[in-house]
């Protein structure tokens, strides 16, 4: 059925990340509306912020808990942001760890380096589970001008590089 095809309508690609600036508002096109109704999710309004989702690393491979990744770059500006991992397959352990703009340590040049892995790692570390086959990274940027028309080619979001796998 066409409605299963995935959220391809009204998405904006920001590097490796996908954003849904018009998700969930009454003005959204009927296809997105029907799909959101079927999924039964609530989304962020543009006043609240912007959610960016990444599903692959820079090579295009899906993200898995058996590998270690390094996220590096500049996070688009906002009053607060949170970075979390969500397991995408059913019956996987619920991942509830997170990093926020409040507790990360920035590099000298104001950019950010985060390690995502099952094993603990020095520096900014977002834990995932070895048992997680597939996950997505969700970067939620709260109270940001990017949510209402600020997204364009000049925004350079972080890249996700696969370092080593078990």
């Amino acid at each position, binding site marked *: 059925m066409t409605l299963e095809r995935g959220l391809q309508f009204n998405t904006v690609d920001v590097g490796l990340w996908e954003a849904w600036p018009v998700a969930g508002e009454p003005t959204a096109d009927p296809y997105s509306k029907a799909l*959101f*109704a079927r*999924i039964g999710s609530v989304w962020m309004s543009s006043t*609240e912020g912007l959610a960016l989702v990444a599903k692959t690393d820079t090579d295009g491979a899906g993200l898995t808990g058996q590998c270690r990744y390094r996220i590096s770059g500049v996070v688009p500006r906002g009053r607060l942001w949170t970075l979390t991992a969500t397991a995408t397959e059913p019956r996987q352990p619920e991942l509830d760890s997170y990093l926020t703009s409040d507790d990360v340590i920035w590099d000298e040049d104001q950019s950010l380096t985060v390690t995502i892995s099952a094993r603990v790692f020095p520096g900014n570390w977002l834990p995932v589970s070895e048992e997680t086959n597939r996950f997505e990274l969700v970067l939620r940027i709260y109270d940001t001008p990017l949510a209402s028309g600020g997204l364009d080619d000049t925004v350079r979001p972080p890249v996700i590089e696969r370092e080593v796998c078990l």
Partner: protein
Amino acid sequence: MTTLIRYILVSLVLGALIHIGAVIALPNFADQKVWNRLAQLGDNREFHLIGDHPTAVRLLGTADPAMVYAICRFNLKTGPVTMAAPPSTSFWNVTIFNENAEMIYNLHDGASRNGELDLELYHLSKKRQEVLPTIEDPNRLAPVDPLTPLPVPPPLTDAQRADLLEEAIERERLAREDDPTIEAILDVDKAFAIYKIFRPLSAYDGIIIDAMSQARCE
């Protein structure tokens, strides 16, 4: 041959109509409606705290583990809703959704005067009724002897009527200038609010639970 083509065309058009109809009707039939799932939390007009991240995901479809969520369901037709909560951590947000989980209003702590949540929601029709009677209607004639002709003031133009309405609204706004309550007028009956507070570390759980337990949705 033309009959075959005609049948094919009719089928295509019919198929397209059915498809369009299904797409538009789907939000009403979705058995996974968030609105229905939220009924299990308890009574309307009360903030219900969602205890953990997996529960938040199950109820809302998606949730930020760095946030603590509370939900309030209500129907604006039964009366205005007051939402209030004391300040807590460095970020909170309230989003109001309609029955179909579409966002219709959003407010975060950046818009509050002192970090407090202080919001009043009115139904559009009720607010109109409240404001309009304050305008005096110059077209209303005083009772006079019907045999004596009197000059009749010219009827108000639309622009004059609009001006009077604006003045009435401005009078009301000035009266509320010292009151930090934020008012929103919404065109919706059944709605729910998601109130979320940022949880930087588990050390803040006490403050957050405090704020959530004092949060009102009446």
